């Protein structure tokens, strides 16, 4: 009788342990698929691995390194949504061709800013603090530790086709999109869309030299 109860309790312990393992396993799986923070972290870590690779730091590999980073960056951002939101109300006044053209130019501008940061990278660390999810929108709060100073960077993301894509980022509370919107609008008001396209093209050519 006693033996039986001992066996029974062992059986229970085993069952509970199994349950715990299964449940936590499921949670880990669910978080890795759905969490905006986890997805963002994966992409950022991917970039950091490229940046830290000693092999890619040589001058001959400079272009390769740049391209590898850009490949990741292009998967992270929803450039179309960002471009639309950076134009604000003017977006709807453009034809579809103009919109497509603008999205391309806008993406290049963002890339330019990111690429500029590549050369400045000096083993800064990224910390992931918190996330907030509401339906298909999310905010992820991160920070970069640069020379003993914590610089907060908050990402706004939106889920589309099962993936979280970046729609805006705020560095020290300064929103990239809001900043570009102000910048673009001041030009649109004076020189319309044609002037804006001209300015962005000029800007992109400047950096290629």
């Amino acid at each position, binding site marked *: 009788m006693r033996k039986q109860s001992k066996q029974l309790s062992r059986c229970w312990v085993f069952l509970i342990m199994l349950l715990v393992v299964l449940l936590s396993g499921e949670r880990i799986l669910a978080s890795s698929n759905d969490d905006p923070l986890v997805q963002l972290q994966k992409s950022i870590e991917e970039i950091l691995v490229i940046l830290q690779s000693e092999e890619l730091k040589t001058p001959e590999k400079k272009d390769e390194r740049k391209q590898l980073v850009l490949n990741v960056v292009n998967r992270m951002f929803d450039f179309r949504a960002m471009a639309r939101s950076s134009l604000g109300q003017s977006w709807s006044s453009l034809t579809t061709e103009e919109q497509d053209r603008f999205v391309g130019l806008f993406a290049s501008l963002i890339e330019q800013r990111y690429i500029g940061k590549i050369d*400045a990278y000096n083993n800064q660390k990224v910390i992931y603090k918190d996330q907030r999810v509401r339906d298909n929108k999310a905010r992820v709060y991160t920070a970069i530790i640069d020379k003993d100073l914590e610089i907060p960077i908050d990402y706004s993301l939106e889920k589309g086709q099962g993936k979280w894509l970046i729609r805006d980022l705020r560095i*020290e*509370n300064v929103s990239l*999109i809001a900043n570009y919107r102000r910048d*673009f609008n001041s030009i649109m008001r004076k020189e319309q869309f044609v002037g804006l396209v001209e300015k962005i093209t000029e800007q992109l050519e400047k950096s290629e030299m």
Partner: protein
Amino acid sequence: MNQFKAKKIIAIQAYVTFFVLLHTGTCAWASDASDLSSNPQTDVIFKTDGPASGAENDAWDDEENWDDEWEEGETIADPLEPLNRFFFHFNDKLYYWVLKPVTRAYSAIVPEDIQISVRNFFDNLRSPTRAVNSLFQGQVHDSSVEVARFVLNSTVGIFGLGDFAKDVLDLRSTREDTGQTLGFYGAGGGFYINWPFLGPSNFRDSLGMVGDAYLNPIIFLDTSNEVIVGMWTFEKVNQTALTLGDYELFTETALDPYTAVKDAYQQYRNGLIKE
């Protein structure tokens, strides 16, 4: 003159004692002070006492910011635009022709660890400013943290060169200043001002800078203006050395750098006031 100085020192001692005592107490004032925010636009978020945990920070996610894609944002009054633009270009040239070369030379001689210590030193001198302004905004806990930081870092941290309070005790600094206190009580930014040498600001924050200057312990040194300007320049060079490249990247990837800087300044300050 000496009597005046002595009075000031006594006042500071009283203040320090008061807050070191308060540091252990509870923070009832902060919640009372929430009645003060009569201006709905400022939408001030009060930090609760104690370390911020994820669950308590729901106040951050201000509803309006989730769907702001069509929002135009408040425009910044800029009646001085021609003059501001002139000084923007002046500062820009000053950066490329003077500040950057000087900073390059400085960086070549001074190692990064020392640069960080120098930054800590100047940052520590701003502790009294932050303490007073946190207090004015009803954030008693933050204020007492600043006082504790100032006392500890000036002594154990050796004149503020090290950040003992943060590294060992995890006492983190807030970034309050007089301009933010004015904003807290509902003062709008007023018109935009781009000062020569000092850079972007607005009417409110320019008044704030005067207030901050009076709260900086440097004034107790009773030195000449040349020394103060010299120290300020030194700080500026050191700061530039630690952030070299940021200014270029931002202004060179903007279409109209003046507008971009003006907007970034406003967003940055509004963010700080909301904190």
